[in-house]
């Protein structure tokens, strides 16, 4: 890992998180933490016509986990639930524009795991092993 990961954009999302807070009347909420470091993310989703109509996140933790979750909320808005299920690690790395390295990758993927937990929960489907193992 290199400290190059702390680019201005990451710090900007860490200090000024977009879509942070609560959604009035969300259709689904999901929350998870990384037991290793204590980072926590909660996502609240409003779903209309099979798409993510609006969403918010809350949480606390390192710059990577919080910035990644916030950037993901912008990426997810308007996407179909199938598109959300298809999002993977590579999409998150592209979105961040950095490679956090093996020890910090889980920080970057916590938001993705939580939003997927929300999508599967909303659909009443069993969460896949792949999702469980993101973090």
């Amino acid at each position, binding site marked *: *890992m*290199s*400290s190059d*990961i*702390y680019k201005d954009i990451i*710090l900007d999302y860490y*200090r000024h998180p977009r879509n942070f807070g609560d959604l009035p009347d969300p259709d689904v909420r999901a929350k998870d933490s990384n037991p*290793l*470091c*204590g*980072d926590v993310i909660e996502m609240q989703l409003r779903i209309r016509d099979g798409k993510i109509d609006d969403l918010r996140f809350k949480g*606390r*933790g*390192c*710059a*990577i986990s919080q910035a990644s979750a916030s950037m993901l909320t912008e990426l997810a808005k308007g996407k179909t639930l199938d598109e959300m299920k298809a999002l993977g690690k590579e999409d998150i790395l592209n979105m961040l524009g950095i490679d956090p390295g093996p*020890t*910090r990758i889980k*920080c970057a993927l916590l938001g993705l795991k939580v939003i997927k937990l929300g999508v599967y929960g909303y659909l009443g489907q069993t969460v896949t092993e792949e999702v469980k193992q993101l973090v």
Partner: protein
Amino acid sequence: MDDYYRNSNANIHRGIHKLAEEATLAYEQAREKVSKFIGAKHTEEIVFVRNATEGLNLIALAWGRANINRDDKIVLTIMEHHSNIVPWQMIAKEKGAHVEFIEIDGEGILREDQVREKIDNTTKVVAVTHASNVLGTINAVEQIGRAAHRVGALFVLDAAQSVPHMRVNAKEIDCDFMVFSGHKMLGPTGIGVLYGKKQILENTPPFLGGGEMIREVHTTGATWNDIPYKFEAGTPNAAGAIGLGAAIDYLNKIGMRHIYDHELELTDYALEKMSHVGGTTIYGPKDPTRRVGVIAFNLGDIHAHDLASILDEEGIAIRSGHHCAQPLMEFLNVPATSRASFYIYNTKEEVDVLISALEKARKLFNL
């Protein structure tokens, strides 16, 4: 350890052959070294366990199961490591007892008023860390021990953070039980020590059942071996015990006074330097003589894990997170802290590297 595995490597207290005899002797010599090192009155007061955590579980689950009753009180402190909280919560739940925590003041020192108030006639156990693994605070354990004994409570000392760093004498402290780990004092992993006063150990039922811990086994039941063997069921970590003995020889050669002074000098130097790094919050006592050599801190709004990553690049290894002390983190109202810690091999030059790495982190985060 190398010699044990190469030249003895026999199971102890069992074989009749020469190798077994040598192995047993080396293991028991290690026990004597530990006994002298912490000032135990009798060698059989030393029980080898895997680590301090296992020792605390043994006390809570073996002594506790026999002695703790419904509505009894177990007094801990808010600065305990999870290993000195969770076993007590387990036994409290099983018995219908309850756990109370002595809190700290603004400098991370245990509140004397709460020591007086919370340790009362309903208290069965007082279990306290000698030194906080987060704040560094060295607690007034003799005084707490006296308060526990005044009400007839058991006094348990978690010495995992103190035994490696300063002279600790179990008899002078007058604790009933004490635990510590080998890996924190230059010894191997997987070996730890439970000290218990002879009479208390004798009256405590066994923790794990199996070989070594018995005198006789019949289909109808079993009788127990003498202490300390009663608590050492199964083939023990003989190599680990011998390794711990070697670590103690090494520490004795340097001298615990010298180790303490060296760490005090580094801590004093680091506290002074760190206080000049803008945006630093340091937790724990300001007076370095009230601490062991750990400094928990936060730097501005940089999360501890981000700081650990940045410092790692500069070759500095710090611990970051909740330090297995979540109740303390909640009490301090911080999600995590970073922690620099020192031992005999650290130098002032390394503290300087730490300081310049902190300055680099400040720049990266535009603080």
